[in-house]
Structure formats: C-alpha cells, structure tokens
C-alpha cells in the first residue's frame, strides 16, 4: 500500500533496530539528506547500510556512523578525503565492511528486485574481492558467483511522484534510486513535487509505483536550478 506522509519523521518511523537500509545517491546527487537526518533522529540502531560510499564530512550517513548506529557498511568506495568518521570506526574495529565492486553492488541490488538467486560475473575474478567466493570458467572467462542484496527499507530521492507513486528522477541523481526501490521490502521516497496522477507521461516513468510505499515531499530537496 502506498502512503503519502507529511513529514520525514513519519516516513522513517517504521525503521527497526537491526534493519538493512539501502540509501540512494552517488556523491551528493540523489542523496536523501532529509530522510537520513530523520533516520538519525528516530533512534534505530544496529543497522546494515547499503550505499555507494560510507559517509562524507559531518552530515547524514557519516553522522549515523559516528554515533555507532551502523553495524555494517556494504559499499564500493568507503575511503574518501572526508570519510573520517567511517575511517575512525573502521580502524577501531567498530564497524564491519563488505567491500563490493560498484557494478557488482548495482547488479546485486538489481538481482534482489528481479528475483534472481545469484549470478556469475567476470568482475572481480582473480582479485582479493573474490577470495572465498565460488568461481567457474564460463565461455573461457573466469567468473565469480554473486548473490542478491535485499533490504528491509530503501531511502531514496526522486524529482516527482504522481498519485500512484510513479517516480521520475533528475540527471545523474537517478543513480541507485530505481534499483534500490525494487530491492527493498519498504521503499521511502523524498520528492520535490507531487503531481496529479496522469501528469507523468507513461512512456517516461522510471520507477513504477509498485515499487514505492511511502512518499514525503521535501521542498527544494533537489539540486535543480531555478530556471
């Protein structure tokens, strides 16, 4: 069932301790900052977080990590110039890291949404990121078996939603949103605008409403420039 709620607090209220939470975004583009802040405030802890990175600076995911609310990160690129909170927790042995090549991360999330039990990919074959994993040679290429990444909750950002929960995104802020929406049991979306059902062209919908559970409007939450 689709719900439109009035606040980000209400939107994240159902997130429980121990949940696996996917968070959209690549860099700042598509990051649902307001939803992450609400997750910080709601108190849920012992989280497994799936994101491309592991937080930057002193905001959002970085703060969640700093406060010890994240038990495990599944990501492709944790180390950045300003990932000091993750770095500190990691070096202290206080956070678990599952490092995944970015394409495997995307494909594993996609597999969860599409009902795929696992797949073979050449990416990572012969590297330390394939250690301990099943491998086989297919058509002469070494390949690694990768499994789907499911989540209890996804927090994503889109540009617009209609009354059916259909979503469109904006430029490279689309990134992980569509595949995370499909991979999570409950998908929470912050949008800049809610438009009437029928206002989005059916040819151009990126995420159909079947993948969306909770929508909250956050004014001015995209980087969209005023025309």
């Amino acid at each position, binding site marked *: 069932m689709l719900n439109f709620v009035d606040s980000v607090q209400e939107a994240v209220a159902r997130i429980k301790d121990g949940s696996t939470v996917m968070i959209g975004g690549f860099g700042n*583009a598509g990051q649902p900052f307001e939803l992450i802040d609400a997750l910080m405030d709601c108190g849920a802890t012992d989280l497994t977080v799936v994101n491309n990175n592991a937080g930057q600076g002193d905001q959002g995911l970085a703060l969640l990590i700093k406060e010890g609310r994240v038990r495990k990160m599944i990501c492709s690129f944790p180390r950045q110039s300003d990932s000091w909170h993750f770095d500190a927790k990691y070096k202290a042995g206080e956070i678990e890291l599952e490092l995944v090549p970015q394409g495997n991360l995307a494909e594993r999330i996609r597999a969860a949404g599409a009902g795929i039990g696992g797949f073979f990919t050449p990416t990572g074959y012969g590297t330390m990121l394939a250690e301990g994993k099943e491998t086989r040679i297919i058509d002469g290429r070494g390949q690694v078996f990768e499994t789907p990444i499911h989540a209890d909750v996804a927090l994503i950002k889109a540009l617009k939603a209609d009354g059916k929960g259909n979503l469109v995104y*904006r*430029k490279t802020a689309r990134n992980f949103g569509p595949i995370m929406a499909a991979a999570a049991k409950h998908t929470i979306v912050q949008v800049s605008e809610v438009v009437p059902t029928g206002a989005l062209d059916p040819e151009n919908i990126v995420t159909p409403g079947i993948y969306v559970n909770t929508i909250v409007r956050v004014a001015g939450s995209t980087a969209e420039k005023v025309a």
Partner: protein
Amino acid sequence: MSTATSIQTSATPLGRDDLARLVARDIAPGSFVNLGIGQPTLVSNYLTEEQNITLHTENGMLGMGPEAKGDEIDGDLINAGKIPVTELPGAAYFHHADSFAIMRGGHLDICVLGAFQVSATGDLANWHTGAPGAIPAVGGAMDLATGAKDVFVMMTLLTREGASKIVEACTYPLTGVGCVTRVYTDKAVFLTGPDGVTVRETFGCTLEELQELVPVPLKAATAS
C-alpha cells in the same frame, strides 16, 4: 630485438598533456569511451569534434560534456569523480545497473585508467596498495577493467623511487587479470597481452635504454 631508433618518436619524455593528446589521437572516431578519475580525465581536453566520441560516466550518463563552470554547475549532474559536468546534445541518463551493464556487457570501446602496476600479460593493479591498515575502496575500477573492449592505462613509467610500474607480476592487489591492452607512459607506449610486451614507440629514449628500466622482455613493434 630490433633497432630502437625506428620507434623513437619524440626526443624527450612526454608530459602529462602531451600524453593525453596522444591517447586522444589514438581513439577511433565514433568510439564510446570512459575516462577514469585523475590523469585519464585530461584526455577529454584533446578529443576533437570530428572524432565524435561519446563519453560515458558510470554514475549514469552517456554524452557527458566538459566540466561545468559558474552558472552551469548543477548538483544533480556530476561525473564519477563527483565533479560537476555538463551534458551534450544526444546525452542519455540511466540508473546504476543499466550504466554498469553498458560497461560489463562489453559495450564501451575504450576505458582509460590510471595504474600502480601493469604486468607483462596485462594484469592491472590500480585500486589498493594493500598496505596494512589501509582502507580499501574499489568503486567501478574492476568493472571498467573487466568490461571495456580495450583498457588503456596512463601512468608514469617509474615510481618516485625509480621502480618500473611495468612488472613481471603485480605485487599490489589486482584489479583485473589480463585486461590491459595498451600502456601510455611518459617514456613509451606499450602493448600488453598474452604474448608479452611490445613497445610501439619511445619518447626520449631508445628501446635499449627503455629495456634497462623495465624488468620484462620488450619487443619492438614491427613496422606496419
């Protein structure tokens, strides 16, 4: 080993910009290309309109334009290095799985990457020093190395300590096995593959002088 002078095409080693210009010139017209973060990004400065190259960025776009300046800057339009960029006519956006399907499905003609080391058979090490305590971060490097039809590496030939980055076997953790086809360095262009290393051209050194620096057997390219 054939005579070295036949493949020396420059009297001095190439600077980063000259090397980027050379890589750009070597990209076939109409190609779809991904330029890695750092030195490879310089290549875009030397692509000509006539080449009609389409740039891919793994965070979800084909048809990426130059870095955005001033009013062009839009937080929703960035490249894989998280730098604001622009969009060219005929651009297309897609989500991350579709974007990596382009890379992993073998649809990119060329990707250009930096490297710590490349082995004689084209193994690539460019993501992790493996140093104790270092926090690993891989991003899209393994997908690019494994997926593109041709993987070009751009790097200085020698480390600051003077060691060759072209090696018999990589000592750094691998990014991909046997994936590099060409290595552009300040001192030479190398072709790598199952048969070992061929030198296409040298800059400011003879093949013999180059061989002194590189611990794997070098062959000169036969004139074609």
